[in-house]
């Protein structure tokens, strides 16, 4: 093991660049996934005949597939049907497809956690369905969704590393390139990037926990709290 050679400033800079790509790709993916996931979650929540069913089936199929398979699919299979994406676009697309399905479930359980009586109350005070959603249900549900969404973002950050299989220049990929220079770098470099991932994700998980605590005390015994630790082994 060669810690000194492995941690040369050139290598460190190159790894930080990889971390930057990881963060950027994950950030773009979570924004789009939240938008699409919200639409899907609301469609499922609204129980529109046929449409809600179709959304439910799509979400369940995607949630039950490995993300790695979806990454392979967007990069290797789509060109066969005439859709050619760059490495970055293929990675982001795959992450958005998978994470939208995950986030739609968070949105849906957030909506479901608001007692039905509130809709009835709002409707009988003369608000339309859209007004009730906009002014009564969504603001409350959104606040409850924040901690699980932060947790999902942690999963997403970890999952971005799967794009190493299509050579996205993210943290793990750059680590592998540095490792290629010298076999004695492998362990030191892996340890270093493990610490990098840990520092980023652990700080985020502290944020999620704090938000969850706040949410819990805000509404002491009323209603349900969505667990921030829905963060599963989910690639994942």
């Amino acid at each position, binding site marked *: 093991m060669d810690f000194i050679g492995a941690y040369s400033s050139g290598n460190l800079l190159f790894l930080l660049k990889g971390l930057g790509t990881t963060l950027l790709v994950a950030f773009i993916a979570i924004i789009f996934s939240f938008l699409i996931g919200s639409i899907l979650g609301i469609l499922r929540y609204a129980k529109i005949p046929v449409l809600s069913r179709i959304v439910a089936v799509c979400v369940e199929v995607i949630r*039950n597939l490995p993300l*790695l398979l979806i990454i392979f699919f967007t990069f290797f299979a789509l060109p066969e049907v005439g859709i050619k994406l760059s490495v970055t676009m293929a990675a982001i697309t795959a992450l958005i497809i998978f994470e939208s399905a995950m986030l739609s479930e968070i949105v849906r359980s957030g909506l479901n956690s608001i007692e039905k009586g509130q809709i009835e109350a709002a409707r009988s005070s003369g608000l339309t369905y859209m007004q009730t959603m906009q002014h009564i249900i969504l603001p409350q549900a959104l606040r409850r969704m924040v901690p699980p969404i932060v947790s999902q973002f942690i999963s997403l950050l970890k999952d971005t590393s799967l794009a190493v299989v299509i050579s996205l220049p993210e943290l793990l990929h750059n680590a592998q390139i540095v490792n290629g220079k010298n076999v004695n770098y492998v*362990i030191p470099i892996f340890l270093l990037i*493990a610490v990098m991932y840990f520092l980023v994700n652990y700080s985020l998980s502290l944020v999620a926990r704090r938000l969850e605590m706040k949410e819990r005390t805000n509404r002491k015994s009323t209603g349900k709290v969505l667990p921030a630790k829905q963060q599963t082994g989910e690639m994942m």
Partner: protein
Amino acid sequence: MLDFTILTNNLDTYLQGFGNTLKASLLALIFSFILGVIIAVMRISPMKVLKAAGTAFVEFVRNIPLILILFIFYYGLPSLGMELSGFQAGTIALSIYTAAFIAEAIRAGILSVDKGQMEAGRSSGLTYIQTMRYIILPQAIKIVIPPLGNQFINLVKNSSILGVVAGLDLMYFGDSISSATYVVFDVYIFVAVFYLILTIPLSLFVGYLERRLAVSG
């Protein structure tokens, strides 16, 4: 339209991959359960050192990518003079990663049982172990089963990383079929179907358990 001859001509290969995916997931489930129980017990034990070690393991493992753990075992160990096959490295990485999540699920289950029950058990003359065994654990199990089921679904999906290190699973054989046939799209659709054959019934079953256990309180 899907070309079903891809499936029928390569059925043996698909099934071999399917079998290995199942095998890796089951092995990892057993190992991660054992490791998870040990770590959960460490985390709730009154001994500070054990507690800290358990917490450190969970927080560290949970916050790094699974595929990094795999690479450490597959690419890192040989530099220390230890070679593992893709299947071995994959199963070990899956077990370690999943153990962190299982430990958390078990800990949450045990903590959710009212503290008064431990005190009541102890004051009626049961030992700590007896109270755990006859009072706390039977109640905790109910709460723990659905999250464990979810972890198993994740395990099946996560086992796809074996494909990255030639671990002879579904992903790996999907790749080898597509290199042999020069077809990608259809090959991976069938790979997806094989994963869904495992994960969809499991999801439905876990959903059913969640509802049932919620009713029986």
